[in-house]
């Protein structure tokens, strides 16, 4: 049962990712991205990362995706729902990326992976919080400054020219 669930989630993720890349209309790509992100969140659950799944849904879908859709709406006429978009250098790109994918998959398949056997923890939030406040305190603070900087930068860039 859970195997089936896993594979269906994996399929949705990959398929919608394909939609994101290949769709001719931008708004469809955005919708497809929603499903990809949801799929990734599902994968996190399978990986016992319940907190990460929540963050994925909140930040990616609630924040970034909404931002992207805003971006689409702001840069195109809202009335024309068919916001077409085209691709460049498709064949060459497909060949190179295809070769790259083959390399990746073959090396993943060849590698002798070592897996430790552990039991599922009851919850991860406490441990992640501890880590953030102790071992990763400095990166955490730096990240907060980065966010502040990007906030100011974005506001600065997109404001109306005087």
């Amino acid at each position, binding site marked *: 049962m859970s195997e089936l669930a896993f594979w269906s989630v994996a399929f949705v993720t990959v398929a919608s990712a394909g939609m994101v890349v290949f769709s001719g209309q931008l708004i469809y790509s955005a919708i497809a991205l929603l499903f990809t992100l949801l799929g990734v969140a599902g994968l996190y659950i399978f990986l016992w990362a319940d907190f990460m799944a929540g963050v994925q849904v909140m930040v990616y879908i609630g924040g970034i995706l909404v931002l992207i859709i805003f971006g689409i709406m702001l840069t195109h006429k809202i009335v024309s729902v068919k916001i077409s978009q085209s691709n*460049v250098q498709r064949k060459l790109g497909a060949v*190179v990326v295809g070769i790259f994918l083959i390399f990746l998959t073959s090396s993943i398949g060849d590698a002798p992976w070592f897996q430790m056997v552990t039991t599922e923890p009851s919850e991860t939030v406490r441990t992640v919080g501890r880590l953030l406040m102790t071992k990763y305190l400095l990166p955490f603070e730096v990240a907060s400054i980065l966010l502040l900087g990007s906030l100011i930068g974005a506001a600065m860039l997109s404001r109306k020219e005087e």
Partner: protein
Amino acid sequence: MDNIYINSSIVILFLPLLAFIIQIFIGKRLPRQGDWVSISAILITLFLAAYMFISMLSQYDPNFKHESSFMWMDLGDFKIQLGFLVDNITIIMLLVVALISSCTHIFSLKYLEGDIRYSRYYAYLGLFTFSMNGIVLANNLVSMYIFWELVGVSSYLLIGHWFEKDSAANAAKKAFLTNRVGDIGFFIGIMTIFTAVGSFAFTDIFEGVAIGSIEGATLTFAGICLFAGAMGKSSQFPLHIWLPDAMEGPTPVSALMHAATMVAAGVYLSVRIFPLMTPDALLFVAYIGGFTALFAAAIALTQNDIKKVLAYSTVSQLGYMILAVGTGVYTAAFFHLLTHAMFKANLFFGSGSVIHSMHHALHKKHDHKTDPQDMRNMGGFKEKMPITFWSMTISTLAIAGVPFFSGFLSKDAILGGTLSFAQQHPQHFLLPMFGFGAAAMTAFYMFRMIFMTFYGKPQMPELYKDIHESPREMTGPLVLLGSLSIFIFYTLPYFNPFSTHGWFTDLVVAKDSFVPGNISAHEIAEHAHHAHMPALVLSLSVAGLGILVAGLMYLKKSLSADAWANNSGPLYKLSLNKFYFDENYDRFLYQPLMKLADKVAYFDWELYDKYFINGFGRITSWLSDISGKFDFDGIDQGLVDGVGRSAKQVGHSLRNIQTGRIQNYILYVLAGAILMIIIQAV
């Protein structure tokens, strides 16, 4: 430097400098534009100088001398020591400078009232006093030279005080440049002596002269060169041309610098260096001085500008002093310097007072065309300006050499010395003739000035009613200096008006020359003593003659000045036009020099530049053409450009990859990464 005399001299020296610094920087912002700063500084100086003078009198020692020096420069063998020398001559000179300078400061209060550069004027006066005291106190030629130049600068600044007038600016320039001519000589003289003796200090130099480290023609040369400096400062022929023009400066400045002190610096230098002058050099000095005395007096006869008369009179009197130095009676020269400083400063202040009231009267009538300095516009001022009249008359009597006045004593000493010199050396009979001739003329032109200004009918009656006596600030110095023209101040503690014998002759005693073989001071004095009587009679008679003629011409009008002028033919015109000196300098000195410069420039440009220099250029240009061709065709085109061209070809073909699209680049990066993986894997 714990000596009281040295210490007070240092204060005397630097106090005016302090006043200068205060005035130049913040003078304008001080109340009353800061004139009180300068005046209190100069009064303290006067007080100190008087104190030194009194203590000198109380010691009454002809050999009184204090010296102090310090190392200024120590460059191995080349050492320069600067220092102070305080002896009787120094103290008398300090007192003269302080006294006249104080009078000038006070006189200027009213004379320059409301001037646009009032504070700066006082600043420059301070600078001048500082420099003049520096000359007086120097015990060596280097510091004397430094202060000598500083005096030149302050003179330049003060003559050009009203530099908006072209004539004032030009006069300042002329004074400075003419002085420079003499100063170059001075400098050459200093260096000549330093090369031979190895020191700048007077004491060392005299010692070197005595032991013969410098002698003969070299010493004569050095002496004449040093004297050239004196010629420039003391305005001696042929460098006299600047002094009359310097009258463009404010009249108190003329009184201070161009009558009493600055021009006396040349005489002071001559007095100081007298012991090293050889007989030949002294003869040169004597002829220069004598000729200047006569010839400047001849010019003064016909001048109509009151200040010009006084200026030429000053030149003439300085000539007297130089003549005295040349004939060996240098103490008489210094004596005349002292008395002359008093009465000539007084005459200038008097003329300033007259000009001031003329100026005000003209100003009231809004008349800006009439020259307030022209004596032909004056006349009859005696009743209106009694104080000015009386003090000027006293000074005039003094300068004319009338007994009971100071000028008689000093002039008599000079003429006696000159006469005795001619008695010893009959071939130089011209020298006393210069002297007596000048004496007669002096009496004439001075009284002419007095008669034209103060006697007779007013020439401009409408102006006359506005003429009035000057304020107290101006008459005060007149009264003081006028009384100092009376003989008594110079002969104390004796009262014989016909003998110079007094504190001065007791304290300033001629010293023997250090030049081996020169006649001793005692002999000179002996000879002069014998010549005293005839000189006295002669000088009295020529002075009387001069006064008589002046009286007949300008007071009684029984002799017509115009008729005399016509009868004398070209002589009158020569005198009136100052012997055409400026014109002749222009014609014979400047123009030929300009022409020579043109010729040199022509040669330089047309021949040297065009053929020689440009020839080089042409050859170089030809050579470089060849090498350029080789460079360009061979190396550049073949080698250097070849590399460049092939690079260009490669770049051109590679350029197609550079699309400017970031996505292309990412693709290439990815392809490159794959390529590396493949290479790694194989």
